[in-house]
C-alpha cells in the first residue's frame, strides 16, 4: 500500500523568471495550491462597485414603491404658494384675487361667536378671465401654528357673506363672477393669524394662493 504524499511546496509564482536563464515561462501551479490573491486595489474596487450597486438598487425600488404616495402628496397637498404681486393681486390660471379688508365682527345677524372665539370677516376683489370650469374656491385662514380655519364653518349664513368664493363661471354673460365677495371665518381669539389661503379643486396640482395678513 503506497502512502499518499502531500504535494511539494512550490516557490511563489512570479510573472517573470529571475533565475538568470533568460526564460519568461511561469512555473505550473501544483494541484491543491491556492490561486494567487488579486491585487488589493482590485478587491477594493469590487467592494465599492457592489456597495454602489446595492445602494442604487435599493433607491430605485424605494422610488418605485413610493410612487403613489409621492404623487398623491404632491398633487393633493398645498405645496406651491402663489403670493401677491406688488399691487396685492395673486393669480392662478384665469383667476385673480386681492384681499381688500380684514375685520373682526362681534355680532353677525344677532348671533355671537362661542366664548373664546371671534368672527373674522374677509373682503375680496375677484377677477376672472375667459369662461372656465373653475367654480368655487375654499378660503382658509392660517395661524402661526399652522392651523387652518375654514370659512363658512359654524358662522351665521347671511348676506353679504358666502361660505366660499365664486372663482369662475362657464357663462360670464349670464352668470358673471361677483367682483366683490366676502366670507366669515370662526377663529380662536388668541390665534395669531398670518395668512389667507384660497384653494380650488381645479387649480394646477399643488398650487394655491396665499395672501399675507397685515400684522
Amino acid at each position, binding site marked *: 500500500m503506497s502512502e499518499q504524499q502531500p504535494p511539494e511546496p512550490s516557490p511563489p509564482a512570479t510573472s517573470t523568471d529571475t533565475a538568470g536563464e533568460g526564460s519568461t515561462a511561469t512555473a505550473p501551479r501544483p494541484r491543491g495550491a491556492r490561486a494567487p490573491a488579486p491585487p488589493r486595489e482590485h478587491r477594493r474596487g469590487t467592494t465599492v462597485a457592489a456597495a454602489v450597486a446595492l445602494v442604487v438598487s435599493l433607491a430605485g425600488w424605494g422610488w418605485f414603491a413610493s410612487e403613489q*404616495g409621492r404623487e398623491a402628496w404632491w398633487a393633493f397637498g398645498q405645496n406651491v404658494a402663489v403670493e401677491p404681486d406688488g399691487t396685492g393681486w395673486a393669480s392662478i390660471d384665469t383667476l385673480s384675487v386681492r384681499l381688500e379688508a380684514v375685520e373682526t365682527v362681534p355680532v353677525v345677524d344677532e348671533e355671537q361667536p*362661542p*366664548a*373664546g*372665539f371671534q368672527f373674522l370677516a374677509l373682503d375680496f376683489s375677484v377677477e376672472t378671465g375667459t369662461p372656465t370650469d373653475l367654480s368655487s374656491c375654499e378660503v382658509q385662514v392660517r395661524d402661526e401654528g399652522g*392651523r*387652518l*380655519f375654514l370659512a363658512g364653518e359654524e358662522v351665521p349664513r347671511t348676506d353679504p357673506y358666502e361660505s366660499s368664493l365664486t372663482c369662475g363661471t362657464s357663462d360670464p354673460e349670464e352668470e358673471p363672477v361677483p367682483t366683490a365677495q366676502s366670507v366669515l371665518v370662526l377663529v*380662536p*381669539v388668541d390665534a395669531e393669524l398670518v395668512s389667507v389661503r384660497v384653494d380650488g379643486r381645479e387649480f394646477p396640482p399643488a398650487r394655491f394662493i396665499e395672501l399675507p395678513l397685515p400684522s
Partner: protein
Amino acid sequence: MRRSRWAAAAMLVAAIAVGGGANAIDSNFLATGWHSVQHGEEGSDSTVGNFQVHVHGATTATQLEDDDVVTSPAVFVVVDLSYATTDAWETPEEVVLIDGDGREFVEPSGFGSDGRVWPAGPDIWHRGTLLFEVPGEAVGDLTLEFRPETPHTQRPASILRVPLTVAASSEPLVLESARVLAEGER
C-alpha cells in the same frame, strides 16, 4: 470557509429574512389596512391622528325619540362625545362600536342626520351624540373605536379604542345635534 464566503452567506440569509418579513407584513397588515391601536378612557382627552377625542359616556334603551318614538328589537346605544382636530377642518372617517366577541356595529341607517359623525375644526371642539343599535347581550362589553381616516394599504394609520360604560335608561333616548363648545369646554 473563508471570511468572504461567510459574509456572502450572511447577506443571503439576511436578504431572505427581509423578504420573508416584508411578505408577512404585507399579508397580515397591508392587505386590510395598516393601523396601530391607541387606548383611551372615558372622561379624558385622547389624541389619535389629527383628532382630539373626549368620550363622556353612553346610554342604552329600547326606544329612541326620532320625530316619533321608535322601538328596537335589539337596543339603542347613544354615545355622548366631543372632538376637535389639531390642524384643519375635517370629518372623521368612522366611529364604530365593538363588542366583547369582536363584532362591529356601525351607525344604523334610516334615522335622522343627528347621531352621525360631524366635521370639527382645529381646537374647535364640538359635542354631540352618535347612535348605534346592538344586541342586548352586547351592551355590557362595548368599546368605541374612533377611526380618523380610512386605513390605507400603503400608509400606516392609527385608531383609538375607548371602553364604554353604558347606563340604562327607561326613557326613549334623544339625539343631540353637534354644537361648538366654548374654549376649554368638553
